[in-house]
């Protein structure tokens, strides 16, 4: 697989059915958005996996870092009051 700058990495998101969200399914190399979409179609939707595809340059995705786990996620651990468990949820309401 080419790793040259002419073929940068793209992340692929596929919506499997109408009404659902796009989900990350993988990545691929392509030189521009059109080629990325065609390659995504051929690589990730050949078994009827989707009805819509997004491709995003991997470099445009900014991710939280593993070593920031402490300040990012740990503080939420003891904030049970943030969950809506103190309310009576009507039976008709599907969560």
């Amino acid at each position, binding site marked *: 697989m080419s790793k040259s700058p002419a073929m940068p990495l793209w992340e692929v998101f596929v919506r499997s059915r109408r009404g659902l969200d796009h989900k990350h399914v993988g990545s691929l*190399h392509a*030189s521009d958005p059109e080629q990325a979409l065609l390659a995504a179609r*051929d690589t990730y939707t050949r078994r009827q996996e989707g009805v819509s595809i997004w491709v995003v340059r991997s470099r445009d995705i900014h991710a939280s870092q593993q070593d920031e786990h402490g300040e990012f996620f740990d503080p939420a651990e003891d904030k049970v009051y943030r969950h809506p468990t103190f309310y009576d949820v009507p039976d008709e309401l599907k969560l």
Partner: protein
Amino acid sequence: MSEEQTTYVLRLADNALIVGQRLAEWCGHSPFLEEDIAMANVALDHIGRARMLYTHAGDLEGKGRDEDTLAFLRDEREFGNFLICELPNGDYAFTLMRQYLLDVYHELVFDALSRSQDAQLAAIASKAVKEARYHARRSGDWVLRLGDGTDESHRRIQTALNDLWGYTPEFFAADDIDRAMQTAGVGADLEALGTKWHETVERHIAAAGLQPPELDWHAEGGRQGMHTENMGRLLAEMQVLQRNYPGMQW
């Protein structure tokens, strides 16, 4: 009438099978992984199309020949594919330019055949036209990309176009079978198809920055069973298993 119709459908099937076989040769050899998967997809689309058309041709013929018999147990002179389908793959530019020229043809011919009086053929064509539309978008994208790319890619795709151009008049060279099928409302109007094909292809060639080639030679005869020297070797590889082990399955 029925014999002509059988031949008409067989030729469509042969085009799909033979170019599908050529495309499948790229499997594991394409320039990068994404292309390898895409190329194999396109190859399988063609082989799937061939299967449907062979089955239909076998039904029309009514002699009990199924898709495998028609694909693997006929000889070179019985195949009616365009010569362009059987040409060796060459470089990637050659394969993609051939594909583009054929994809646009297939998009047009299956669009026309989706209104065929032959209901089964019309149903197959309605499915195939969607595939062909995607194939043309894909190969057309590559033609633009290579034509408008580096000096080297431009040189290769222009060479491919020049070398292939003489095989394209065969797409629209109607013989008695084509004329009979068009009159019966089964087949496509090749003259009208040719006009549209030239418009589409020549516009795209210009957009890719390529020079339209001179038609100073052309070759035909594939549809009448007169093939190039490449056909025998292609069939030998494709048919060897069924020839050596008739009826074998796995």
